[in-house]
């Protein structure tokens, strides 16, 4: 719908209200602290006067005659018995008092220099801002003030001091706001220009004589369940002001002693100050009876919970949900499990047509409480109607073409799924809804990687697109299937994980199945055409796996241990299916399938392979135990010897060092040389011992996990079976923490391996106390390191992505920013779209083979 532009904003002025403006603008003068009379109606001239706007339904505003929600509210005012300082202008007032003459009120700059300085100030103000201008004025005036005489009237000047928060002193004598105001009144218009004040402004307005009362609409009272009224904090504060103001008036009129009037005046000043800002550091904040601090004007605006950051900059969305995530390997890769309770609150608007009238009526019949039902209907005129037991019949009658039904979420609906921090485009992907029992979002563990999610309590957000265009856009551009290939390195970001990898590895490596077992496995992962299964009793695992592959798919690659993987026409001929082929962020197999058979096929295949692996593991069984860490006796001795030899080597180096026979390495001191060579000797020991351990622990479940890349690495195995090894802090052996030694258990200046963090036990045999302590030291260091590094790198990434956010590749392959300036003349210097490459390179030979066909 086009909207007429009635008025265009040309500019906005910020300024200070004059007392006259305040009075002209006011709809009412407030004279009494009472809010309501005995009948509960607002008192005329009270703070809830209905001339200030209405907050009760049914009443009409006395000023504009409009009802609740129509009347914007109107300002009122109070006449203050004595002037008070506006706390937010204290500094400006001080500046003016300090730089003007006590008697003639001229700026303390000689007449003939004023023009020149005005130019200087203007320039500084323009270039460096208002603060810089203020400093410069202070500097200039300070120079002339040294003479202690006004350059205009030659009279002696006094020192003015501010006693925070709002008392001005001249030579230890307090200036009352009346006196301050009188001085400000005398300042000439031309002199104000020097301070940068505009012509329409008078400085005495910064001392309040009348106080503006905000409309009731911005401080509405709430009615409690007991029927009692609870007033807004602002109303409370204003009540205090009015009350004290009345008392001050009465005392002045009654001719009370000066002391009492001074006291009341001070109190009034306090109330007016805290009305504007209740967080002035030198003042005790005004409180409720319960001791809770009042939220007054300044605290409404500032800080994270204030109007700006919370209400204006902070945005919230409807049709979204958030909860804990948990894994479900049995749903598809591009599905998300949504709790049923959520699906009854999240709705999708569906337009009624001739063809779906009956279908939608069924939702309406179920109503909002029975799944799958509907919560609202929207009439063609845009009015929405809630479906309840009472309205249900009527709605079913009137439902016709052109109506919309907001029905519950059902299986197959489109949703956007997101996990913060949203660092790349795969952090928000489109999933298809699957309504499930339970209270968590379910996702296939294979898509954890792009979201960087795990299930230790992570929460994720779900958004439901509300119109056809948004749904189409989400589905075509953002569906998980379309995001499988990373635009960062051109490989698959999703892949099999953990059990799925182990299962497929075992299947393709060593399993031979009965025909019935094979069919059971395959049926379990969604295959129901077994015509490709070889017609024999014993079926090799490789043959079972091959059924999932497309019939015309050929591929040659390597598995993790370097053997050749060969797939010819959909048959796995050699090699094992491990992390290198099935894993995320690795291997070209998934990448090639994606290229040849498309996103949907790949996602489906990946789901099937995952399920196959899990099914294999579930049927075969797979357990790990401490026995997996056992080594044969001779291997144990072999490892012991290696450690012994390296220790001896290290000790002899240390001996050489002490006897002065050690030759320093180029560019290093003798002590450094010692450290480097000892560290080298000890690390060699661990590597050798680790290799031996890895070789010897044949075919235990633990090594299987490591070999196929499902979990763990050889170092983990070595640390459990053979030797934990040298503990290092910042790339060095553990240094002395006490004087000259690492722990008081060792003698001073002991450079031997065991005194400097060499752990020669393994986790299975157990560590000695000192070894355990060294392990704890490096463990703590690693923990600190990650805790400190994560926010740092996160901030670095944020700065980068913000700086580059609207760079784009143009049709001529140049990278340009939002204003069309060229950043790069050809994208990435090689003009390659990484997501269209395989691991960053284009496989030219492969393409040629594909074109010419088959044979090499």
């Amino acid at each position, binding site marked *: 719908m086009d909207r007429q532009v009635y008025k265009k904003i040309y500019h906005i002025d910020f300024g200070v209200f004059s007392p006259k403006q305040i009075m002209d603008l006011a709809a009412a003068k407030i004279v009494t602290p009472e809010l309501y009379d005995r009948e509960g109606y607002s008192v005329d001239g009270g703070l809830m006067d209905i001339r200030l706007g209405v907050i009760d339904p049914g009443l009409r505003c006395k000023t504009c005659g409009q009802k609740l929600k129509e009347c914007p509210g109107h300002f009122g005012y109070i006449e203050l018995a004595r002037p008070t300082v506006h706390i937010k202008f204290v500094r400006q007032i001080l500046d003016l008092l300090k730089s003007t003459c006590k008697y003639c009120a001229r700026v303390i700059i000689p007449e003939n220099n004023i023009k020149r300085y005005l130019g200087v100030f203007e320039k500084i103000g323009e270039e460096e801002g208002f603060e810089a201008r203020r400093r410069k004025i202070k500097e200039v005036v300070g120079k002339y003030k040294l003479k202690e005489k006004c350059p205009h009237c030659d009279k002696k000047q006094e020192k003015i001091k501010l006693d925070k928060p709002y008392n001005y002193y001249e030579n230890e004598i307090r200036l009352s706001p009346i006196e301050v105001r009188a001085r400000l009144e005398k300042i000439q218009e031309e002199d104000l220009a020097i301070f940068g004040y505009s012509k329409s402004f008078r400085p005495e307005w910064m001392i309040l004589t009348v106080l503006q009362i905000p409309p009731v609409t911005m401080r509405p009272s709430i009615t409690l369940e007991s029927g009692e009224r609870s007033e807004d904090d602002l109303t409370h504060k204003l009540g205090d002001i009015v009350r004290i103001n009345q008392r001050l008036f009465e005392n002045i009129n009654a001719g009370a002693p000066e002391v009492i009037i001074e006291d009341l005046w001070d109190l009034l000043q306090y109330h007016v100050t805290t009305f504007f800002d209740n967080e002035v550091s030198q003042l005790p904040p005004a409180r409720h009876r319960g001791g809770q601090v009042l939220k007054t004007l300044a605290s409404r605006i500032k800080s994270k919970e204030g109007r700006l950051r919370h209400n204006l900059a902070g945005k919230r969305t409807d049709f979204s949900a958030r909860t804990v995530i948990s894994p479900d390997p049995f749903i598809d890769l591009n599905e998300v499990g949504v709790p049923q309770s959520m699906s009854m609150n999240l709705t999708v608007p569906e337009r009624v047509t001739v063809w779906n009238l009956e279908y939608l009526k069924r939702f309406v019949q179920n109503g909002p409480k029975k799944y799958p039902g509907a919560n609202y209907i929207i009439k063609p005129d845009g009015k929405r109607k809630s479906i309840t037991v009472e309205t249900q019949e009527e709605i079913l009658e009137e439902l016709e073409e052109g109506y919309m039904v907001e029905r519950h979420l059902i299986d197959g609906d489109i949703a956007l799924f997101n996990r913060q921090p949203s660092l790349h485009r795969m952090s928000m992907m489109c999933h298809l809804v699957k309504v499930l029992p339970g209270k968590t979002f379910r996702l296939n563990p294979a898509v954890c990687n792009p979201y960087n999610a795990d299930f230790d309590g992570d929460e994720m957000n779900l958004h439901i697109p509300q119109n056809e265009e948004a749904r189409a856009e989400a589905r075509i551009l953002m569906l998980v299937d379309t995001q499988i290939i990373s635009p960062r390195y051109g490989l698959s970001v999703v892949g099999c994980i953990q059990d799925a990898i182990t299962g497929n590895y075992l299947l393709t490596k060593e399993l031979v199945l009965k025909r019935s077992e094979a069919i059971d496995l395959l049926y379990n992962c969604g295959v129901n055409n077994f015509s490709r299964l070889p017609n024999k009793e014993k079926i090799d695992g490789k043959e079972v796996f091959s059924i999932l592959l497309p019939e015309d798919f050929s591929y040659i690659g390597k598995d993790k241990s370097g053997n050749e993987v060969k797939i010819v026409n959909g048959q796995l001929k050699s090699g094992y299916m491990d992390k290198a082929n099935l894993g995320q962020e690795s291997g070209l197999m998934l990448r090639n399938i994606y290229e040849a058979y498309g996103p949907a096929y790949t996602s489906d295949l990946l789901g099937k392979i995952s399920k196959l692996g899990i099914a294999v593991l579930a049927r075969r069984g797979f357990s790990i135990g401490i026995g997996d860490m056992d080594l044969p006796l001779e291997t144990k001795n072999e490892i012991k010897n290696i450690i012994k030899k390296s220790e001896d080597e290290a000790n002899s180096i240390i001996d050489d060092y002490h006897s002065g026979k050690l030759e320093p390495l180029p560019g290093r001191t003798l002590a450094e040389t010692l450290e480097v060579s000892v560290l080298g000797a000890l690390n060699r020991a661990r590597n050798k011992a680790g290799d031996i351990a890895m070789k010897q622990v044949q075919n235990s479940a633990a090594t299987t996990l490591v070999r196929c890349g499902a979990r763990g690495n050889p170092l983990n195995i070595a640390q459990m079976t053979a030797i934990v090894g040298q503990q290092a802090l910042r790339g060095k052996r553990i240094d002395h923490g006490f004087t000259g030694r690492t722990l008081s258990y060792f003698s001073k200046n002991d450079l031997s391996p065991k005194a400097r963090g060499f752990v020669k036990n393994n986790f299975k045999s157990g560590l000695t106390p000192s070894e355990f302590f060294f392990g704890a030291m490096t463990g703590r260091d690693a923990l600190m390191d990650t805790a400190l590094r994560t926010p740092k790198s996160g901030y670095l990434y944020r700065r980068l992505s913000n700086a580059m956010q609207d760079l784009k590749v143009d049709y*001529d392959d*140049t990278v*340009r920013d939002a*204003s*069309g*300036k*060229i*950043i790069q*003349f*050809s994208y*990435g*210097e*090689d*003009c*390659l779209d990484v997501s269209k490459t395989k691991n960053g390179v284009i496989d030219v030979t492969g393409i040629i083979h594909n074109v010419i066909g088959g044979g090499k």
Partner: protein
Amino acid sequence: MALDVNKHQLIPKHSKLTDAERKKFLDDYKIDVKSLPKILIDDAAIITLKPKAGDIIKIERKSETAGTSVYYRAVIDG
């Protein structure tokens, strides 16, 4: 001239576009000189080319991804 930085192995080849080349370049990219990356007129690498403000400098450098890559900068008078 005491030192010619262009002899250093890390300095890529800088050359100045002729008027004809310059016009073709700007037409090809449909661009104004202002939209180009900049290089100071007294940059040590181009001082021997005696450039004027508004000239376009062609820089050919080694690239990890593409072998050699070409970059252009407009000369500005600091």
